[in-house]
């Protein structure tokens, strides 16, 4: 009976562990710039992705994750890059009803210093969206951006899914 009890405990532990594990896959940028681990629920969108842009759809209706390479930029820092971008997002022709949700803050992605922030805006159909974004200027002067967007405020307030991705981020240069 003791033996069965022990085996049952192990089985329970395995079941609980399995329930707590998020299945993930390793995504490597086709151009060989970076690699990270992404939860299985994110689906790569080949149709929307290009040489410079990698797009994933999440399991929520508007959950979106995308990484963009902007080529060589003249910004001297990620702060400058972020300030200029946010200035244009809030300007006429930018994002409708743009509002900052989380101020600019330093963040580290795969050992590179970047700047993160979160904001909200309205899309063309009048839906309010929240977006968490990281700006980076990589060695060699390449601009890079990581964005996580959703129709739920959690995308900006508590972007756990993105934090997991950033935690496993590796630069391949």
């Amino acid at each position, binding site marked *: 009976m003791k033996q069965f009890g022990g085996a049952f405990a192990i089985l329970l532990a395995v079941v609980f562990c399995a329930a707590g594990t998020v299945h993930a896959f390793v995504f490597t940028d086709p151009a060989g710039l970076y690699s990270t681990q992404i939860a299985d629920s994110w689906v790569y969108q080949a149709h929307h992705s290009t040489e410079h842009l990698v*797009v994933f759809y999440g399991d929520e209706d508007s959950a979106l994750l995308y990484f963009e390479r902007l080529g060589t930029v003249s910004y001297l820092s990620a702060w400058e890059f972020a300030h200029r971008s946010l200035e*244009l997002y809030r300007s006429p022709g930018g994002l409708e009803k743009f509002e900052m949700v989380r101020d600019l803050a330093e963040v580290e992605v795969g050992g590179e210093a970047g700047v993160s922030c979160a904001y909200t*805006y309205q899309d063309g159909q009048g839906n309010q969206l929240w977006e968490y974004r990281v700006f980076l200027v990589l060695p060699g002067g390449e601009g890079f951006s990581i964005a996580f967007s959703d129709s739920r405020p959690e995308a900006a307030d508590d972007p756990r899914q993105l934090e997991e991705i950033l935690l496993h981020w590796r630069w391949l240069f």
Partner: protein
Amino acid sequence: MRSQYWSRYICAVLLLLLGAAAPCSAAGLSATFERTLGAGTAPSLVKEYGGEYILPIQERLRVEEVFARLAAQSERQDVQYTLTVLNSREANAFSLPGGFIFITRGLLNLIGSDEAQLAAVLGHEIAHVEKKHGVNAIFRQLGLSVLAEVGAFALDFLSGDLLRAAGLALTQILQAGWGREAEFEADALGQEIAARAGFDPVGAISLLEKLIQAENSEESMHIFRTHPASGERKKRLEENLAEYWSEPDLVKDFSALERLKQGRISDPGGRTDPRARYVLEGVGHPGVKLVDQQNGEQVVWAENAFVKEAAWSPDGTYLALLVDAESLGELWLFDRWGRVFRKISGLGEINGFCWSPQGDMLALEVPGSGGLRIVAAYLYAEAFVDVSGGRQAEEAVWLEEGLYFRSGADWYRTEPPQAVPVRVAEPVPVVLQRKRILTPTLVKEGNTFRLTRPELTVP
């Protein structure tokens, strides 16, 4: 009021004749006058065309970059160029003295992402300002051509009435255009400014063709109201193209010649499909025989023609066929679905051809009265350039570093104008929204099921 006007006028003329204004900077004063004149007319023009249109961020950055590159090529450093996008569906562009350039969103939509065409239209408008076509037309209208000839440096004295009269004249002239010769001059200088700024000068021709095509199908094409006949403009722009190709140089680098030979041996006629779908089985009559490797079926393209030669474009987008049409050579370009994309004819006979490495041009071997010559044909514009520079040329091979042709025992190399892609120095990341996934739905109708087409909503 009127006596004051005349006294100022006479005073200015006297000042001009006496040279009293000599210590002043002539160019500076003239630019100030132009700027004042343009600034006075701009608001009514913006209002007439539905106000200013703010472009979305990414497009705005791209258009501003193209404009900045062109303005940097301006020879008149006394002019401060500004660009305004007008909120009108009409396809049009204007310039006002003082560097005010306008383009409608209708014309921007028509141009799309073609940077060479955008540079062509903006370069044309900058050229009007460079050549002072607006000011000269006003002076002619007001009978002040003497002043214009002497130089407009004392015109700052003529504020008030004259400026109002000039503004009124400017509005009237704008409706009629700056004049036929001014348009030709702006075409040529605009093309030159665009080429200097690193844009392909053929953009002016392809834009003109696009405008002609749109003019036939749309009502909102008012750009031709004020411009001379398009055919004549196109002819002159095409004649200018040769100036932007480099002068053919005698090849002394034998490694290049070696590569030429290797290139010809590895794929003599570009017969291998770069996308590895079709196998070219043979050319002749009827047409060209291809085997589609996806289904193993044989297809025949140009089945009613005698095909002398066939070659795929480097990226496999087109298959070019040299066709014997009424004993003259014609080049037929087929897309991958076997449809004729374009026929190149009107050059007389074509003996042979080769593709440019980018697949945007073809070098044609064309017999002329003085022997064979090499003519470059553009793919996206009806334009041809004789690149052999008056030499007899027998054979052409196009490598990355330029177009080579053989004249007697010597090889020469020439290069097309180099286009520099637009790169925004301070880009901002795109902001994406998820596209709605459209799934067909299954509807039960009695004992049968029907698949319904989803409603398309464009975000």
